[in-house]
């Protein structure tokens, strides 16, 4: 069974993988039957609502909840005083403080109290009756302002041991990566470009607001239903905050209405559990859109200094980046990933990145699709583009000249195995898009992007039913069609039709620990575990066949959905199909199942090249996306429709980030655009079709060669669009978003 994976990749003849079957959750989702976070109810359920700080930064001197508690229909009021202080785990302590402010409200929208009442109207009345005595203090929301001397300080304790002494107390951590000697490298360059690039914070923008339903008994047994990217994470975090055993808290993941990283932590769940505990009633909480924007994780805003040296024939001699990311009011901006990924696409002798994790009076950032990488790539890919065009060189050729390949020592440390960057660049260069004519006020941009991808704790259980079909239980919420992909891989391995496999997302009581659906890990890691679970089931079925035939089990092989006698016994018995073995399982040792638990290595890094044409209206600065093509390595596309969907979705989120999405804070530190009206995600009429080219350079770390595909697609668009707009407008754009006032001002200043 254990074929060498490389050898297997060369010989595998897929029957199911690579086809485009219909998704198993399709009918539920087109008929309105699918149940999302807010779609569940419980008998006797109360409505939970949160009171939020109207100040960007304020000491909470006191909270008087007595008037709220006195209202008929109010069953519980919760503040931070109801939670045990967490002293031994800073990470979880920050999550709790973010869910319910302790000593200070750290941003506009920070939760300060919550109520549970018999109706929404009563709950709203109760919120108004809570009196919070705030002492408003100075605030800071800009990443560069936050580290100036005299800036308002969020946490007196300052940063960790990586931060040099005498640094701003708003710096939480410092990271450094690279090799070689930057100064020596720069001295070989014909031109050294130094620039600063800035990006604004953007929100993941999932259409489904956070929602959960909690209940907890006197015996400590608790149940949570919620929309999340990781119900095991929800279980572990809530158990720690509530001081209950993980095994006593069962979390069931609803269908999830988008996450993109934003649902990899908790906001409401511990509060709902505490309200349920205090009221002894089930409590449902659903955020409004304005709460989602004010108080759940946007991504970081950034300010990045670049210094890159290039020879006139396009060789990068040295590359340096200093990255400052603010991740809101707590440590943990994704600057480390930014510093690691910034130069990952290039083979560089002299490279260094320094990252600074900075806090400001903004909501605690949450992961957003390839967290930290798009901002870094925006700066690096803009600079490379400017250098290439300055020398009159083809920007794709320059990237090819410097491209990382198998054997390249990455700027963040590892040596790459087989990777697909060069293939995406060559494909882009050969594509008709690259040579299509452009009109007046139009420009074309390209950029590359990288994402690490990830494995993580994974459990899969595969059961053979008595009638010869299979069920797969996995522990990762399906955010992009993963149930279909798991069923496909199980069907492929077992040799039965896709329709004979049904995959479910199991609750936390059903499987061991599962990492969150993040890091583009599910098709890779859960897929790998599914394949291994199927292989375990096949081994068992071969054993049962051997028993039936009375031959040695080593002399049985599995092919085309049946056990065959092999070796000296070949042909001695007619094959036993999966259904035949399943039908008699009761007599040959009992039910048949396979399972696999692992934390797989070998996720296989991912690269993409994006190409985009834009037109700039010189009178208004409005940017139109005319054409867009994504070239990305998928390793092996299990379900090509969903791979294309990930490419397209990531590209369009990148278009939003590049052009019109931004967190806008007033002088008072209050978020000005907490709604979909002024937080402007792309609408259908803003866009052309998004063309995709899937490349398949197999990942040696996966049995079928799969690489994660979900995140890389948001890394190149920021720079690709900036490069295209800069060409169309005739002026280099160094700040995102490139909203019309900014583009017009830049062209008029030029």
């Amino acid at each position, binding site marked *: 069974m254990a074929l060498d994976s490389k050898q297997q990749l060369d010989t595998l003849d897929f029957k199911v993988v690579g086809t485009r079957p219909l998704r198993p959750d399709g009918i539920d989702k087109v008929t309105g039957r699918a149940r999302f976070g807010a779609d569940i109810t419980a008998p006797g359920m109360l409505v939970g609502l949160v009171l939020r700080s109207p100040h960007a930064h304020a000491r909470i001197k006191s909270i008087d909840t007595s008037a709220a508690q006195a209202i008929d229909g109010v069953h519980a009021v919760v503040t931070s005083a109801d939670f045990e202080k967490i002293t031994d785990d800073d990470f979880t302590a920050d999550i709790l403080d973010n869910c319910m402010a302790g000593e200070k409200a750290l941003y506009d929208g920070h939760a300060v109290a919550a109520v549970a009442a018999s109706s929404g109207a009563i709950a709203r009345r109760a919120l108004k009756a809570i009196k919070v005595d705030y002492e408003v203090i100075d605030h800071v929301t800009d990443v560069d302002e936050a580290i100036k001397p005299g800036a308002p300080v969020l946490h007196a304790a300052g940063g960790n041991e990586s931060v040099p002494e005498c640094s701003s107390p708003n710096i939480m951590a410092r990271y450094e990566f690279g090799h070689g000697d930057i100064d020596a490298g720069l001295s070989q360059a014909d031109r050294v470009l130094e620039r600063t690039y800035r990006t604004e914070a953007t929100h993941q923008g999932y259409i489904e607001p956070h929602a959960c339903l909690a209940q907890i008994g006197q015996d400590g047994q608790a149940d949570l239903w919620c929309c999340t990217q990781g119900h095991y994470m929800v279980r572990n975090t809530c158990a720690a905050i509530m001081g209950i055993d993980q095994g006593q808290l069962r979390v069931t993941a609803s269908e999830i209405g988008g996450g993109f990283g934003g649902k990899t932590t908790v906001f409401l769940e511990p509060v709902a559990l505490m309200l349920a505990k205090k009221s002894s009633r089930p409590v449902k909480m659903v955020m409004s859109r304005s709460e989602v924007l004010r108080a759940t994780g946007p991504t970081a805003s950034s300010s990045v200094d670049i210094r890159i040296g290039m020879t006139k024939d396009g060789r990068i001699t040295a590359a340096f980046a200093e990255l400052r990311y603010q991740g809101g009011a707590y440590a943990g901006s994704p600057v480390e990933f930014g510093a690691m990924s910034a130069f990952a696409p290039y083979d560089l002798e002299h490279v260094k990145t320094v990252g600074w994790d900075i806090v400001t009076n903004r909501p605690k950032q949450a992961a957003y699709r390839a967290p930290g990488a798009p901002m870094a790539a925006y700066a690096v890919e803009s600079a490379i583009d400017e250098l290439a065009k300055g020398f009159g060189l083809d920007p794709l050729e320059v990237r090819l000249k410097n491209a990382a390949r198998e054997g390249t020592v990455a700027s963040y440390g590892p040596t790459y195995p087989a990777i697909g960057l060069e293939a995406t660049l060559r494909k882009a260069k050969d594509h008709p898009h690259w040579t299509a004519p452009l009109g007046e006020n139009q420009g074309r941009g390209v950029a590359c992007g990288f994402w690490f991808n990830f494995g993580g704790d994974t459990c899969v259980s595969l059961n053979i039913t008595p009638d010869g079909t299979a069920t797969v239980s996995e522990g990762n919420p399906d955010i992009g069609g993963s149930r279909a992909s798991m069923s496909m891989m199980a069907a492929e391995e077992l040799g039965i039709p896709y329709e004979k496999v049904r995959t479910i997302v199991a609750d936390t009581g059903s499987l061991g620990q599962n990492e969150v659906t993040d890091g583009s890990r599910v098709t890779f890691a859960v897929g790998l575990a599914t394949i291994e679970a199927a292989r375990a089931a096949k081994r068992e079925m071969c054993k049962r066949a051997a028993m039936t035939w009375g031959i040695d089990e080593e002399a049985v092989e599995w092919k085309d959905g049946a056990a065959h006698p092999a070796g000296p016994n070949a042909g001695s018995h007619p094959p036993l199909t999966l259904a035949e073995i399943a039908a008699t399982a009761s007599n040959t040792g009992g039910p048949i199942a396979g399972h696999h638990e692992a934390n797989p290595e070998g996720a296989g890094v991912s690269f993409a090249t994006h190409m985009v044409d834009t037109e700039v209206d010189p009178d208004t600065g409005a940017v139109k996306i005319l054409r867009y093509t994504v070239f990305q390595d998928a390793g092996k596309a299990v379900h090509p429709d969903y791979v294309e969907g990930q490419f397209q979705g990531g590209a369009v989120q990148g278009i939003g980030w590049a052009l019109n999405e931004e967190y806008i804070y007033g002088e008072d530190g209050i978020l000005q655009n907490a709604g979909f009206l002024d937080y402007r995600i792309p609408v259908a009429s803003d866009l052309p079709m998004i063309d995709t080219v899937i490349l398949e350079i197999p990942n040696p770390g996966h049995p079928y060669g799969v690489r994660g595909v979900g995140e890389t697609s948001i890394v190149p668009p920021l720079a690709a669009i900036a490069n295209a707009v800069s060409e169309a407008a005739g002026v280099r754009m160094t700040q995102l978003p490139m909203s*019309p*006032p900014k583009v017009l001002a830049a062209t008029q200043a030029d």
Partner: protein
Amino acid sequence: MRYLAPTSLDDAVQLLASDPGDCRILAGGTDLLVRMRSGMAEPDSILDIKRINDLRQITAEDGGWRIGAAVSSAEMNEHTALKADWPGVVEAGDLIGSTQIQGRCTLAGNLCNASPAADSVPAMVAARATARIVGPDGTRDVPVEDVPTGPGKTSLGKGEFVASIFLPAKADRSGDAYLRFIPRTEMDIAVVGCGLSLTLDDAGICTDARVALGAVGPKVIVVDAAAEALIGTQVDDAALDALAAACSNAATPIADKRGTVEFRTHVAGVLARRAATIAKSRAGA
């Protein structure tokens, strides 16, 4: 809160006049319900005018069109004759929000919500529309530009509401247009809006024009200098330059989350120029 749904205009006037508390008129509800949800409006009563049949009609009157206060933008857009006469006004209504919003929103509601950025208002002003206001003291007709007095404020008295909008008879060889600037292609509030109507004589000389700007002041701005820049010209490049300059001069915008002062000032001129070009072609030039 009370929900009132009278079926006659007289009943509506009486209910509104006799309501002791904060009673709000519900036409399309696309602003009122948003305000209620955010807590910005907490009315004691809501008076739904959509069950008053007269207010749901588009009626020919004196060569022009009377549009009931409960007529949605979508209904206007489906009215071929109205659209042929006043395409600018109809298109302005058709720019408010999404298809879903256009199925509900009304000219009268857009006017009385008194947002400086209301899309249909500059178009109505350019068309010299009047609002028929009803109330306990009777009925009066006023130019639409006199209804909003500032952000969220109107000149309506206690117990008064707008029952209909009247678009006058369209002159021969005239045309109107409304353009607005938004960052996306749909779903945004105007950063700048410009409504414009003009009339040409047989020689193609502009004999009448009216230009109104939205979102560049606390209420809609009628730019007489812009109209004067067109009148007597063939609406040629020089006239368009003068028009654009007059509009930029007249703009008194603020900087906010939707745009800067400089941007709005400049784009007011750009839109006026483009709107004039459309109106001119619609006038048959």
